[in-house]
């Protein structure tokens, strides 16, 4: 590749400049020496403005996710791995098997090429581990002050296996509500690195691609009603979305909701409620009560579901309240997130 560009891109202390988005040779070199080098796969190497592939019979899903996180690098991940996991998860929450990803980069003039290289390497690693290649992309550069380093938008497509009907409006009274592990890890990990808020913690982001876990789950229990990843707004907001979409209520048991002590302590300190703190490697599953124990076993047998638990049940309630029996023995409503708890977490 260096034949086309006699002087290699300076990924040690070079920076992005306007020419990297101009459509000219500098842009071609950036794409070649960073993106193609890391993402390398046959479809990308077609070097067209689009990737062409065979389509499977049946239903496909498509999802897009823009990533604007600050800070770009955080314990347990970075914007690159997050942009791969986030979209894979959005595709997988339909029960689909994700096939391909696209990635669009908005770079700010002056952004260090070393950081871009590191982010691309992280994306490539995440995509390879997930078995979901990045097959097409785009790069734009904006003037200094008009962006915040790098924004990444990824799109994913996937295929839904026959017989799977998963949707946010299918929760039914008496269904069980499951979660695959502890909540709030991602949000707390991000906060611990915020410039005006730095505190020491061993908590890492839970950022992970969940499609493997989902595949095992839908294979064991094809009749799963709802799957959703509780990202921004946390567990509470996602459950409210599902309750409203399905026209049902939910009854949770606070004592059964897994929260790591370090996450609980950080939230206590900052005055946050972990139920509203973001996750990036968690899913909420709603399934018929009769399948719940079997599904729980399948989840716990998977590396990303070892701490899976049943946290409550769907109840009849036209007003769509999510209610919770508190660990203290009282009861309260768990409302939607109002305002913002944290800016720019994904």
């Amino acid at each position: 590749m260096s034949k086309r560009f006699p002087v290699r891109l300076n990924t040690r202390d070079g920076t992005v400049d306007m020419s990297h988005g101009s459509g000219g040779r500098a842009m071609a070199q950036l794409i070649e020496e960073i993106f193609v080098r890391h993402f390398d796969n046959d479809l990308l190497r077609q070097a067209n403005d689009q990737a062409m592939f065979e389509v499977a019979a049946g239903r496909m899903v498509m999802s897009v996710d823009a990533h604007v996180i600050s800070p770009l690098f955080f314990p347990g991940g970075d914007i690159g791995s997050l942009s791969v996991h986030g979209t894979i998860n959005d595709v997988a929450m339909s029960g689909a098997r994700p096939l391909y990803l696209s990635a669009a980069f908005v770079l700010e003039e002056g952004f260090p090429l070393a950081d871009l290289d590191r982010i691309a390497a992280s994306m490539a690693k995440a995509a390879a581990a997930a078995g979901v290649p990045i097959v097409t992309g785009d790069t734009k550069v904006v003037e200094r002050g008009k962006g915040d380093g790098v924004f990444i938008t990824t799109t994913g497509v996937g295929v839904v296996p026959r017989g799977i009907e998963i949707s946010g409006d299918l929760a039914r009274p008496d269904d069980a509500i499951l979660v695959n592990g502890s909540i709030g890890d991602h949000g707390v990990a991000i906060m611990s690195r915020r410039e005006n808020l730095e505190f020491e913690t061993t908590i890492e982001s839970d950022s992970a691609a969940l499609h493997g876990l989902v595949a095992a789950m839908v294979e064991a229990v094809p009749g799963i009603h709802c799957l959703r990843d509780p990202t921004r707004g946390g567990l509470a907001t996602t459950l409210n979305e599902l309750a409203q979409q399905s026209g049902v209520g939910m009854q949770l048991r606070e004592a059964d909701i897994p929260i790591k002590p370090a996450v609980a302590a950080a939230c206590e300190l900052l005055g946050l409620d972990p139920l509203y703190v973001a996750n990036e490697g968690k899913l909420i599953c709603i399934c018929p009560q009769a399948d719940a124990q079997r599904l729980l076993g399948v989840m716990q047998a998977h590396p990303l579901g070892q701490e899976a638990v049943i946290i409550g049940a769907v109840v009849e309630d036209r007003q769509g309240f999510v209610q919770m029996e508190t660990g203290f023995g009282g009861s309260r409503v768990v409302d939607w997130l109002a305002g913002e708890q944290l800016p720019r977490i994904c």
Partner: protein
Amino acid sequence: MKYVEEFRRQDLARQLARAIHGAVDPGRQYNLMEFCGGHTHAIFRYGVQDLMPSNVRFVHGPGCPVCVLPIGRIDNAIQLAQRPEVILCTYGDLLRVPASGRKSLMKIKAAGADVRMVYSTQDALKVARENPCRQVVFFAIGFETTTPPTAVAIKQAQAQGLDNFSVFCNHVLTPAAIQNILQSPDVREMGAVSIDGFFGPSHVSSVIGSRPYEYFAEEFERPVVIAGFEPLDVMQSALMLIRQLNDGRHEVENEYTRVVSRDGNVKAQALVADVMELRRSFEWRGLGMVPYSALQIKKPYARFDAERRFDIPVVAASDVKGCECPSILRGVKRPTDCKLFGTVCTPDNPMGSCMVSSEGACAAYWSYGRFRQGGQVQASVA
């Protein structure tokens, strides 16, 4: 989580609930005002009311610093932040408080004003050090708990020669407010609300001690129990208040002995006394003008006083029509008595300050309560 979970144990809550049910006189009503928003929040978040007998009512008081700040002072802060040279630093809750003309700090931030959320006065000092060519104003609010850190920041700014730092001081005093509530016609003469006893503030009392409450416990013949912010603290304190009322006593008792002493934090008090002095009068939302209820920066520190530096005018601004925040803050009305509650006023679009802060009674009712569309949903009490 050590030292926290011990105070949220369900088995102990049940024991206490049994003791309270056993102690109450079924023939009477117990109206207990928790002054602090921290208590209000704990009561709702943990569902404490569900464990109490039906004749024990929590009356939510004005102890939410965001809620009692009059609109005029927010208007002042907005005008300050709109000056091009100013960076306004403030605690997060204040950003969403509605001011006059449908403005808020968050809205003017979006429109280009430099408003920054900080977690402590130290962050504001840092902003001042990093921006020597800008005027950094810390929008200081809060009761006695947050006052010492503001005093420290002013002293540090002086020591470091940070001439671009100043404080817009809105610190208010708890005992003055409690006294004002007890003296208000609603409570004294009209009998619109009877407050039988008080949960004393926790963190405020860690600074001022329990002594300042002795005067009005005696004068107004109302028991006060200084209570911690955890749900078991609230229940234990309720039991102590109920016992006092049954015995006809009106003493200051201290449930929160792990933190609060009779004299409080003498060092912090001295620090505040060095930097600040009483204002002759200060407007409280809900209570109106309350004499000697707030602090201002003393003359020797005048150069760090934003009110002097920017010549901030006194603005009289009125509440949104129909907003019952003033009555709710005095415990005279409940959030559900307000026509705006849950209709046009919600945490996403607050019309009054009680709906903004998580310590506000309206926000707590809305977020944790079952008071929406079509009235009350039945609680499933454990």
